[in-house]
């Protein structure tokens, strides 16, 4: 395998890891506050549809992004209503949200666009284009030279290849996702809000005793979760691909959940877990590369299911123990 192939694989790793990372951090906020969320998948899916649909109608990807976030927040609110206000089962609520999104997106897409449950393709400003960082070889250089971009990059030196292919050329949401990691760490571990949020996931009664609203904190966490899932979904429909297609999240919400366990509910580990799972997804697309490295073919199905297998191994506690927040999944009932 040559250097350029490696850079290309890493490049698609970053692209594929971005939605996982955003959803994983979303789950991190929610679960750190004691609200299990297996509805990440559904929220991403809803956001993917509404961002794609609104971006197509308005022609502005930013309005689309806002619509995506709003739809994800509505589902978050529903999850909060069920699991915080009415103290229902958080897992069942998450399952319901996943199905609600899976059904509603197709239903509305069919009703609005009549294209078999998809939105029309997004072009121009209705889509997040890659950002060209300074000095990087990008589409403008390719246009100026009148040659395809891939040719220009393959002729450049290794450092330039690395910079142009891997560092530059991603949509703004990729950089936002990467910045969200230190931001999450800072919020959770360096602010008063973060301390309280973590406390409410470990021992809500103690937080309540201190005169802080458990319900308010948990709703705040669920709300942040909705925003991040919304960005993740919008990324799928408006940056990674050009438009919404039925079930386009394709289990990413569950992989994000797996990454969250893999990361043991910590932000920086979440980044590495999501990059790992992104790499696995990228390699599943390039099984020729895998065969080139190890010398014999690996079934693509094995590569596809490796994130899930790894998560089960982690959950089994064979590679360090994953301990979830202590009050996770339990509705808080004030003693009277």
């Amino acid at each position: 395998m040559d250097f350029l192939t490696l850079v290309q694989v890493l490049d698609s790793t970053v692209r594929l890891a971005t939605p996982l990372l955003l959803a994983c951090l979303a789950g991190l906020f929610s679960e750190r506050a004691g609200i299990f969320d297996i509805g990440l998948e559904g929220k991403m899916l809803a956001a993917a549809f509404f961002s794609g649909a609104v971006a197509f109608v308005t022609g502005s990807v930013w309005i689309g992004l806002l619509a995506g976030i709003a739809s994800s927040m509505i589902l978050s609110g529903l999850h909060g209503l069920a699991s915080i206000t009415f103290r229902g089962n958080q897992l069942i609520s998450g399952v319901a949200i996943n199905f609600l999104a899976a059904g509603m997106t197709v239903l509305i897409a069919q009703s609005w666009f009549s294209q078999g449950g998809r939105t029309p393709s997004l072009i121009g400003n209705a889509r997040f284009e890659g950002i060209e960082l300074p000095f990087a070889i990008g589409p403008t250089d390719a246009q100026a030279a009148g040659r395809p971009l891939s040719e220009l990059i393959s002729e450049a030196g290794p450092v330039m290849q690395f910079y142009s292919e891997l560092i530059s050329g991603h949509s703004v949401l990729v950089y936002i996702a990467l910045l969200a990691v230190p931001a999450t760490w800072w919020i959770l571990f360096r602010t008063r809000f973060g301390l309280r949020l973590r406390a409410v996931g470990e021992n809500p009664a103690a937080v309540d005793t201190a005169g802080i609203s458990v319900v308010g904190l948990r709703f705040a966490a669920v709300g942040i979760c909705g925003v991040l899932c919304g960005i993740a979904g919008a990324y799928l429909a408006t940056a990674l691909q050009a438009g919404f297609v039925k079930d386009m999240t394709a289990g990413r919400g569950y992989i994000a959940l797996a990454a969250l366990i893999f990361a043991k509910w910590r932000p920086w580990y979440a980044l590495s877990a999501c990059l790992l799972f992104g790499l696995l997804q990228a390699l599943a697309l390039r099984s020729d590369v895998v065969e080139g490295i190890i010398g014999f073919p690996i079934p693509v199905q094995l590569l596809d299911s490796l994130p899930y297998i790894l998560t089960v191994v982690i959950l089994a506690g064979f590679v360090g123990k994953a301990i979830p927040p202590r009050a996770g999944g339990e509705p808080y009932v004030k003693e009277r």
Partner: protein
Amino acid sequence: MDGMPRWADVILVPLISLIIAFAISALVILAIGEDPVAAVKLMVAGSLGSTYGWGYTLYYATNFIFTGLAVAVAFHARMFNIGGEGQATLGGLGVALVCLALPWPHWALALPAAMLGGALFGAAWALIPAWLQAKRGSHIVITTIMFNFIGAAVLNYFLVNVLRPPGQMDPATARFPEGSNLPTLHDLLAPIGIEFSRAAPVNVTFLIALLACFLVWLLIWRTRLGYEIRAFGHSEPAAKYAGISPTKIIVVAMLISGALAGLMAINNVMGESERLVLNSVEGAGFIGIAVALMGRSHPFGVLLAAILFGFLYQGGAELALWTSIPRELIVVIQALVILFTGALDNMVRMPVERLFLALRRSSKSRQAAE
């Protein structure tokens, strides 16, 4: 404290939840510019108006009875088995391997063997999550979700690389031998002079599903094991104190649950498609969750809920055929049923409870006044 009489708990609350779920579904149909009344009429006519419609309704219901019972048994031990989908997928593999292994002379021989195959594979796929829950404390919900995906990959691998006959393009097994084809309800009813649609896929598995309902009821409420499962579900410390082994209950309950989900395959794989294809389960494993919640984890409730969902499924197919309402409407209804009978249960329960308390108080005060 008993806020309300038992009938309200068992019938009234689920009924109100169901009505809310259906009312919102009607609003959804309105919102996409269709007529809900016409839609319901079409659904009823298409799924209950002919023996053909009934045949499909009961065929789908058979699937949902198995997956619903699977979820219900796990619920009794206070475990949430989301893995019905994967267990039914693997059950399909088990059934296919059995059906393809021998040139079966008659279905009566093939059926018990295939049932064993499906149940064993389904149970095996539930065993690892169960063991991890019992021994390592890994959350069963997460592990069963993961096993759904792993199961799909395993099936994909087997169909593409192992079981596909040479020269065939689509990832599916060969057709099962003639002798393993199950008799449909038409074949069963014809000798006693009842006309039933020849084309509908409902088959002898429906009767086995009814039997399964009865056996699960027997197990849960009439055996020592069932008592232990329920005791464990109510309170793990109390069960432990009474000498019930948590490991045993978790593993056994999940094995039964997985076996039931795996048994679904004799309906859809052996009874209907008569070969194994990709994604043969078609989400029935997840519908089992809605069915179990709606049926309050009671086999009789599961049976009724499964028939209701069978009706919705067949009705939804008819809608998709004759109107511009896509089949996904059923997924929405399913989601709303799970939401209202499961997650938002307290939203309905609390006001009803308060109502009954108020009624009791006013009748008491009236008695006191007299």
